[in-house]
């Protein structure tokens, strides 16, 4: 492996420094959340083709400028990172397609018209030729694209497997990088087992817990604000964004690096993360934390217990109608999944703001939260 790469042209440094700063986890994450909700709010403007094209051009310019950075250039040309770019492009495209039609339909409803899909559904079409031809043409294009990709880009093959020599950083396949990123904030039993399990159980539970009968068979946003916002938040912010972070912003030792910051294996970070028990006993009460875990960890337990009892109780009041619609069991399922989902950003912000390591820390039983 070669050493760290250079910084790129001098005249770019102010810009590169700025972007590196924006890439800091807390700023990137907060910025993305604000952008996400802002985009939902201003969707009507954003889906207008000239605006969308403007954004695409801006992103392309940003991409090509970024290639001036040797660090980014190195990562961008890794064959196995190609799916990340395709993911960004395709996800952007379909999100735009969905919202373009949703905005259009919502406007039609306001004018007392039926959805565009409803109009089209009036007519029945023969599958041959109307669907078969589309399928055949699309399949041919996709096949051609895969062939072109396979001719142009060679699937990597590295050195023979060597269990004694671990690469730094050792990364999971790109589609699991979101989970690997979560490992920074939670122990493996949460990031690698509990959270993925709850993604699956949450997805399966979703149809049974969405009492809203509207919005079947057509694109809309206004009739399904809550469901769409939550789902897209999970998909775009907690999954796609974290994959991007894991790919481009995590270097040796899984340290954080700005987009253009060379991956220096010797980057030293002063890691003085502190457990909640230390904050409570040492900083607040001014004594040594008790040795027995059940004495030492009760503040953490209380906090977590409170989170999973007080919050649902509050939610039954705040979302009374929703609660009545769903009933106790289904409401609990929804709230528990939402609370676990939110616990990820909460832990992130606690880490970034007060260097919190663990809320509950019982290493003897590998029970760290």
């Amino acid at each position, binding site marked *: 492996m070669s050493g760290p790469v250079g910084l790129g042209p001098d005249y770019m440094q102010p810009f590169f420094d700025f972007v590196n700063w924006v890439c800091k986890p807390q700023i990137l994450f907060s910025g993305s959340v604000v952008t996400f909700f802002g985009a939902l709010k201003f969707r009507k403007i954003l889906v207008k083709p000239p605006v969308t094209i403007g954004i695409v051009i801006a992103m392309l310019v940003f991409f090509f400028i970024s290639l001036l950075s040797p660090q980014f250039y190195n990562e961008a040309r890794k064959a*196995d990172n190609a*799916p990340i770019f395709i993911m960004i492009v395709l*996800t952007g495209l*379909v999100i735009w*397609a*969905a919202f373009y*039609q949703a905005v259009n339909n919502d406007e039609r409803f306001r004018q007392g018209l039926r959805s565009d*899909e*409803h109009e089209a*559904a009036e007519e029945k*079409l*023969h*599958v*041959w030729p*109307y*669907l*078969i031809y*589309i399928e055949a043409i699309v*399949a041919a294009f996709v096949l051609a694209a*895969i062939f072109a*990709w*396979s*001719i142009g880009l060679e699937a*990597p*093959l*590295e*050195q*023979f*497997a*060597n*269990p004694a*020599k671990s690469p730094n950083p*050792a990364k*999971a396949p790109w*589609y*699991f990088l979101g989970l690997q990123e979560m*490992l920074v904030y939670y122990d*493996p*039993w949460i*990031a*690698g*087992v*509990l959270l993925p399990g709850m993604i*699956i159980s949450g*997805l399966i539970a*979703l*149809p049974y817990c*969405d009492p*809203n009968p509207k*919005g*079947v*068979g*057509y*694109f*809309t946003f206004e009739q399904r604000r809550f469901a*769409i916002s939550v*789902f897209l938040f999970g998909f775009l912010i907690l999954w796609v964004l974290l994959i991007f972070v894991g790919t481009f912003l995590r270097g040796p030792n899984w340290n954080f690096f700005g987009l253009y910051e060379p991956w220096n294996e010797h980057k030293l970070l002063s890691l003085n993360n502190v457990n909640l028990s230390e904050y409570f006993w040492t900083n607040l009460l001014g004594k040594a934390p008790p040795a027995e875990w059940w004495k030492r960890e009760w503040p953490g337990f209380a906090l977590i217990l409170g989170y999973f009892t007080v919050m649902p109780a509050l939610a039954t009041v705040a979302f009374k109608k929703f609660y009545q619609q769903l009933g106790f069991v289904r409401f609990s399922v929804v709230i528990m999944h939402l609370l676990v989902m939110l616990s990820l950003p909460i832990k992130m912000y606690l880490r970034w703001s007060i260097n919190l390591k663990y809320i509950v820390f019982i290493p003897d*039983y*590998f*029970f760290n939260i």
Partner: protein
Amino acid sequence: MSAVGDQVRKILDESVYQSVIWKSVFRHGFPDTDRNRTLVVLSNLFLHLHPAKLKGHAVRMRYTWCMGGLSFFMFLILTISGVFLMFYYRPTPEYAYVDIVALREDVPLGMFMRNVHRWGAHAMVLIVWLHMLRVFMTGSYKAPREFNWAVGVILLKLTLLLSFTGYLLPWDQLAIWAITVGTNMARATPFLGHEGPGASLIGYDDFKVVHSKSDIRFALLGGSIVGPSALLRFYVLHCVFLPLVAGFLMAVHFWRIRKDGFSAPL
């Protein structure tokens, strides 16, 4: 139609569509009448996954983004290219890597087929995600399609597992370390992993039921490191077990799309 076209069509009508061979294969004339267009879909094993007619919105690309069909198409491409790769690959540490090297260097179209399989797998993961996104955005998961959505979620998981088990097979540095990182998490499974919460509670004094040689990660890898048995296990899962389960669930998925009715505005 042009005069030449008319002539061609006339010849086809008279000598091809009326011929014994054509009729034995297709059992109906060229699909340009309503009757034949219905028959072509109903009488063909592959096309009859579709109904003969669909509501207008369901045919449009902007509704389905073609993502469900493409998920299946990618599965087919991967099956075909994967069978090709299987001819040249032996799942043991001494052969796996050299087989891939030989495949790239000596086998005609070997490099190309490997690339198709690799990039196709990445593409399939993405396409299945986007298919799920479209089903969500059109509210198609709501009653009566809840169960088919659940089948889809399992298909999504299988797609990821297929990709993940395939990652190990080249037996290079990328492979074993990505799988090491991935499977290390299994160590931490509550009660079932030896570094998972609760695992140390199962047992008595020094006698532990769940330890590094009996936990779920060990079962997955057939050992405590990513070694020969892990390679064999992942190979069998990747080439036999997971595709069979996925194929079976796809059959259920497609059947249910027809039985539940394709989503449509009321």
